[in-house]
């Protein structure tokens, strides 16, 4: 059974990997041993589709025993039959890679990425930096991620890696407001902010325009300033 964390590095022989990918997934029996959040273990969903809505992080069985699962505490998770290691939302998934494992089996991640293809909009490669000199490996992974359209995320501890998984799931639907510049919530600030998004309109212009016209009159003006093919 292929594992991608150091605990079982010695047990993993590179030869047996291909056969194990799908063949060794034991559906019902093992799912019942899942400790937390095993709400669906009486009726495991082996046919779970990647796109199906779920409140849980879906974890591939190949991740069983990965210490980072111990640190996924704020979000429920369950095992499921999936291609990536983790499904973190309808359009988000993650592959986990420990650098120590990667150094021993440099081809592993390559094959996983190929198998994954481009199924999800956001495909995270979650790398745990657990070797002393990670730079060469990180450089290769960085290039690989650009070619494979993956988002590279580094974590330096299992806690941190677990936290990333939680956050991806928790923020699945979160708007980007947190990242945006704060705008005062009164009418004038909003209108000014709105109008100044048009090039060649500055704050003073916005105010004088506004005092002359109402917003309903201003919007058509916006149309004349630039083409708008909605």
């Amino acid at each position, binding site marked *: 059974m292929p594992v991608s964390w150091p605990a079982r590095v010695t047990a993993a022989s590179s030869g047996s990997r291909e056969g194990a990918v799908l063949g060794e997934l034991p559906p019902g029996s093992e799912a019942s041993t899942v400790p937390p959040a095993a709400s669906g273990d009486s009726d495991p969903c082996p046919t779970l589709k990647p796109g199906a809505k779920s409140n849980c992080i879906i974890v591939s069985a190949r991740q069983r025993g990965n210490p980072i699962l111990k640190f996924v505490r704020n979000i429920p998770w369950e095992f499921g039959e999936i291609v990536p290691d983790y499904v973190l939302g309808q359009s988000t998934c993650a592959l986990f890679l420990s650098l120590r494992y990667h150094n021993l089996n440099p081809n592993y991640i390559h094959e996983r990425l190929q198998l994954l293809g481009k199924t999800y909009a956001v495909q995270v490669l979650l790398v745990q930096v657990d070797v002393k000199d990670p730079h060469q490996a990180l450089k290769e992974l960085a290039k690989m*991620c650009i070619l494979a359209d993956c988002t*590279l995320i580094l974590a330096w501890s299992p806690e941190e890696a677990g*936290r990333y998984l939680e956050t991806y799931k928790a923020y*699945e639907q979160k708007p980007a407001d947190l990242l945006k510049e704060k705008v005062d919530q009164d*009418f004038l600030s909003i209108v000014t902010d709105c109008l100044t998004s048009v090039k060649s309109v500055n704050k003073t212009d916005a105010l004088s325009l506004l005092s002359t016209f109402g*917003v309903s009159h201003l919007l058509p003006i*916006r149309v004349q300033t630039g083409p708008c*093919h*909605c």
Partner: protein
Amino acid sequence: KGLTPPVMAAPLEHENQVFLDLFHQDGLVICARGLGIDRILLRFLRLYCEPASLVLVLNTSPAEEEYFIDQLRSDGVVHLPRRVTNEITSNCRYEVYTQGGVLFATSRILVVDFLTDRIPSNLITGILVYKAHRIIESCQEAFILRLFRQKNKNGFIKAFTDNAIAFHTGFCHVERVMRNLFVRKLYLWPRFHIAVNSFLEKHKPEVVEIHVSMTPAMLTIQTSILDILNVCLRELKRYNPALEVEDLSLENAIGKPFDKTIRHYLDPLWHQLGAKTKSLVQDLKILRTLLQYLTQYDCVTFLNLVESLKATEKAFGQNSGWLFLDSSTSMFVNARARVYRISDDKISKKSKVSEKMDIKERKELKRELVLESNPKWEALREVLKEIESENKNSEDLGGPGQVLICASDDRTCAQLREYIIAGAEALLMRLYNKTFGKDERAGEEWIKDRKAVKSKGNARSDKGPQAKKAKVEASSKQNKIMKKQDLTLTQMMGKTEEENIEEEMEGYKELSSSEEISIEETKPEDFHLNLASDAYYGIFKTPLTIIHPLQGCSDPYALTRVLHEVEPRYVVLYDAELTFVRQLEIYKASKPGKPLRVYFLIYGGSTEEQRYLTVLRKEKEAFEKLIREKASMVIPEEREGRDETNLDLVRDSTSATVSTDTRKAGGQEQKSVQQTIIVDMREFRSELPSLIHRRGIDIEPVTLEVGDYILTPDICIERKSISDLIGSLNNGRLYSQCISMSRYYKRPILLIEFDPSKSFSLTSRGSLHQEISSNDITSKLTLLTLHFPRLRILWCPSPHATAELFEELKQNRSQPDAAIAMAITADSEIVPESDKYNPGSKDFLLKIPGVNAKNCHVLMNHIKSISELVTLSQDKLSEILGNAVNAKQLYDFIHKSYAEAISQGKTKR
């Protein structure tokens, strides 16, 4: 004013030799601190101040530039050096360069001008590098020198530094510096150089060393602090066995550079350290401040610091335990004993009831002020008396001589001035009242008492007043004051040296002015007097007596200027500082025949003395090491890079261009293309452009509106250091940068670059919260990647790694076009797959209340233009948006009139 303008003194013997050596062959001069490296640079500047030559000076600060220009002006130089800063537009710069002379140029500008060939490199006579020891850390100057050598094989490079200690650390430091400077010669001028020594011996000033002994209380305190320091150091070693033992000696721990040393060792593994180690490092810093305060300031200030430490400990409960050691108890007891004692009857009473007594009661105990005076003050008074009596019969010397008193910082200077004018009692009393409550009565009575004692002819202070009783402020008020002290304490920790208190003073005209000097208040305004420096304190007019701080002036040459203007006959060194002592030697030597007497006040057997000696020893050792290294150094013939054989100048262009060919079948000719990266102008503060250039990739500096580096027509990179990353994630800048990058480039990339000297980690150990917090940088990064699926992230441990990665990312891809990259603004055409909607309209809509990222596309699918939006009814809107609340917000916003909005805004306010 009877002050003569500063005239450059006649060159000294050894200076002549330094100058000639360096003039004949390029090299690096390392000269002892205070031995006048600035004077040597000045001679070169004077030599090249003519239109026929073009000489660039690197690494000077504005204050230094001003000093050099002033000096040259007073020497009557016509073609004065000019400064090339961003005030001169890029178009005018070529003209400035071709006018010749000496130019102080901002490094960033020079890099860009060399890269774009705006500077006529073949016309440059040479480059002078000041503070050359910094060449390794500050990458821009090294880049400039490399660009210069690549394009100009004949010009000179001469480098200067007076920081020998900087070469003491690291492996082959001096050799690496010389390699970066492209020089073959190393000129060492330590103070013990035979030429320097014999010359200065001939012009020795008269030195009176006064070893002041500390009071018993001070000695006990010092011993206690040293004990505690020792314990802390042992602890630190126990927790971090990897630390080099040699550097963690007690002797080093009391010196100023200790913090730097310890950070140097701990920074790379800072994220792995436990809380214990971190607080130990902090404690060491506090203890060092305590030691410094002990000898530097008066008993009240010291007690204040000690008490506030205790208060902080109580308030926050965080210290690594040294406060509970026996030694620290002894320190507290003695610190208090220097200020007051609790009268005998009370003490017996206290011991009886001490267990039941709560804090409030104890506060009400009567105190009897002792207010121990500083021994150095007395010594200073003696010295001044001696000078005065000598000045009285000084006709044969041409009238009374001027006096210059030097103390380390501004606070000391202010205290000394008050001491000389008002006396020790008044000063200490004022400080006491200020810091420990407005205890007017005790103060007055104490003064009265002192006067009575004085009138009896007994001037000794340690007799003290007889059982005067005073009530101390209620505990609540005390606490308030304590809190305030905490604040000042933390400020003092960081910036004791820089504490710059400008006193607008024409005080020396009023002989016995007793005006209050506010020590805590800082007045930033500069008040220009006739003297060149504005940081001095005048005391008497005849003979002119001035106190000047040794450090912390805004102008680094303030003291030098004052020295040359005042021309003192007597210099009193209240605090010893190596640079100034040497400067005095040089000053004396440059004015032979003029009498100069130096009084050297130092506490015998104190850490102050030890610190001074350590600095001396360190410099001596550094020079000895340099001499050994110089003897065994192997310098390649081509080091100077005047021909094509210096490998440092060879840009690694083979790998950058040929690599495309290797896979082609043999014999197939392929045109090799010069690799290029377009770099934003603002990026030249970092080391990265220089490293990229070194890899044989051409750099095109332009001003980019989107991105920092354009690698290929598709790849656009925004580089963020960790602090930038946190800042720009918080203020929304990174979000908008990502928006524009994704709009105009197929492959937008965020590069997170770590500082190689810090730990390669985003979050430190144990900083993770139990729950997901939206304030964490990792959470924000997650959200960012969720919203920009096409955004790639690169994590680079150092600029070197980044440059390597850039080169590899460029392989087999086409070159970017600077004109296109520059033209990318909000109006440009967008990348087709990024958005099928007009980005301008989308931005506009997203800013309207009720429209969000989720319903925006739905809305845009339903309307043809924004003007159509106005015609829609509220019902129709809610049908489109699928949400009545959003629809109402949107509708109200569109149909609100300006007058309505204003009136609404008013009622809100």
